[in-house]
């Protein structure tokens, strides 16, 4: 046997030992990166040399669940007997694996440009130098040699690359959005706050306020993680007069993940409308009435007065108090004066008697 043949044989044996190291559980192994989950640290086709040793957070390790299914990822967390890894290029970490499944720690990376061309060149030169020897051999040997070279190439690929032979669909980060809060602000404004999970509101296409089967279009402004919906005041007044306290807001909006993708959101939100009694204060010859509700309230004020015992005289005043409005009504100047304030709130008549 010539020296060059011996060297080639030794090199092939050494490579085979390293490649089989992963399967045989040797202290050192060579593995080819067969995915793009670790880009840019490790690229498809790069070779990694890994050893059996301790590891910590930040190390790139190889864990295997079977001889043919191994993963080369970075450790992001070690808790008790579980290890969490993640591909540098993956959006989400892998499911935790028992510490015992982690077989190797990567110590050296050989870029594909450094190993693939020289390896192909060596094989080519070796085959070219052996072409005359092949011509002399027995019948059928050339066919076997060609077929064998194909088998060896395919086998090396299968052994080098930790591959998937099971159908584990890669995890997808599906965009979503949750509602954080929905509440009524003064002025008939409904504030909707969202928690975006990879998707945010871009534009409201349609908005409808619904009460008791009555529908009215509403205007919505904002975007991202919050919207403000302006509910028609007529609808709120209708709610007040009919004693309704739940407002339904329906809206269709477009969701954006980035410039190249759009989703949609169809939301139906039930917003409680807390009807609060009017604040009525009297003193100094006047009656102050404040409306804290989101709808206008019609108020009747009846003054009863007398200067001496006898029949009471009356005078009336009507006014409409808008949402958040305050009115000051001057009382007649007499010795005995009472004011009877009556209004419709949440479908029922309320009344307050005060002395200005």
């Amino acid at each position, binding site marked *: 046997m010539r020296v060059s043949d011996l060297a080639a044989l030794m090199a092939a044996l050494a490579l085979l030992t390293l490649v089989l190291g992963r399967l045989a559980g040797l202290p050192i192994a060579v593995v080819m990166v067969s995915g793009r989950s670790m880009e840019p640290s490790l690229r498809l086709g790069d070779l990694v040399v890994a050893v059996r040793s301790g590891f910590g957070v930040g190390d790139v390790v190889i864990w295997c669940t079977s001889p043919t299914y191994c993963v080369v990822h970075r450790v992001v967390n070690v808790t008790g007997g579980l290890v969490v890894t993640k591909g540098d290029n993956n959006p989400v970490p892998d499911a935790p694996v028992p510490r015992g499944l982690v077989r190797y720690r990567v110590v050296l990376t050989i870029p594909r440009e450094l190993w693939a061309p020289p390896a192909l060149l060596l094989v080519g030169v070796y085959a070219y130098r052996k072409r005359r020897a092949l011509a002399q051999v027995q019948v059928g040997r*050339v066919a076997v040699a060609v*077929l064998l070279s*194909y088998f060896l*190439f395919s086998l090396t690929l299968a052994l080098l690359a930790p591959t998937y032979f099971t159908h584990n669909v*890669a995890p997808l980060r599906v965009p979503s959005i949750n*509602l954080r809060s929905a509440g009524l602000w003064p002025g008939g404004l409904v504030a909707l706050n969202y928690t975006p999970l990879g998707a945010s509101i871009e534009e409201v296409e349609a908005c409808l306020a619904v009460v008791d089967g009555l529908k009215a279009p509403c205007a919505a402004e904002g975007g991202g993680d919050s919207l403000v919906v302006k509910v028609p005041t007529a609808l709120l007044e209708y709610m007040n007069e009919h004693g309704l306290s739940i407002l339904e807001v329906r809206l269709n909006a477009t969701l954006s993940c980035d410039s190249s993708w759009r989703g949609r*959101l169809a939301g139906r939100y039930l917003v409680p409308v807390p009807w609060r009694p009017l604040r009525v204060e009297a003193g100094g010859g006047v009656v102050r009435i404040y409306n804290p509700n989101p709808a206008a309230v019609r108020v009747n004020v009846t003054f009863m007065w007398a200067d001496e015992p006898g029949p009471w005289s009356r005078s009336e005043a009507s006014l409409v108090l808008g949402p958040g409005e305050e009115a000051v009504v001057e009382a007649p100047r007499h010795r005995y004066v009472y004011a009877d304030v009556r209004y419709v709130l949440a479908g029922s008549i309320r009344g307050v008697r005060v002395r200005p």
Partner: protein
Amino acid sequence: MRALKLLAAALGVAYGMITLALSASPLYLVRGPVWGAVSLVTYRIWAFGSPFYSPALDAASVLSLSVLFSATLNIAVSAWLLVEGGHERVLAEAHVGAALSSVVSAGVLKGLERLVRGELMGLVGSFDHVTSAGRVILGRVVVEALPPAGFFFGPAYIAIVAVLTAVSLTHLVHVYARLGEG
């Protein structure tokens, strides 16, 4: 005899070129919120606007090198068969070896088809869901097999492999018969 040699070489080149062309062609189209194209050697898929990397499709790309190697081997040996004058027995045997590799490669291809299709079928379906914000409508993912996939993974491709092997073996038998006569 010469016609058989030419036919064997032409079939080898045709097989190799078809395999290389089909390996690089888009075989599957993914449409919907996850979209892109998948060929045997590579893929470009975006999921909700971000690039999507699949370990199974990456593994298929690596293992497809086996199919590409067989195709290249067939082209090289067939070209050698056409160009080189002497070593008729060696060339015929090499051609048979390459043709037999295509048989194995067809089996590898079947496995890769299952791997790729299985991964893509896992993406098919609706991504609509309901949260506290309402119904989040993301759309439906559809995977469409393109005409090259039908040919690559269908009986026509197997037929080419079978004819290539048969013609190559016939050529080898003729070469040996002539050498025996001589």
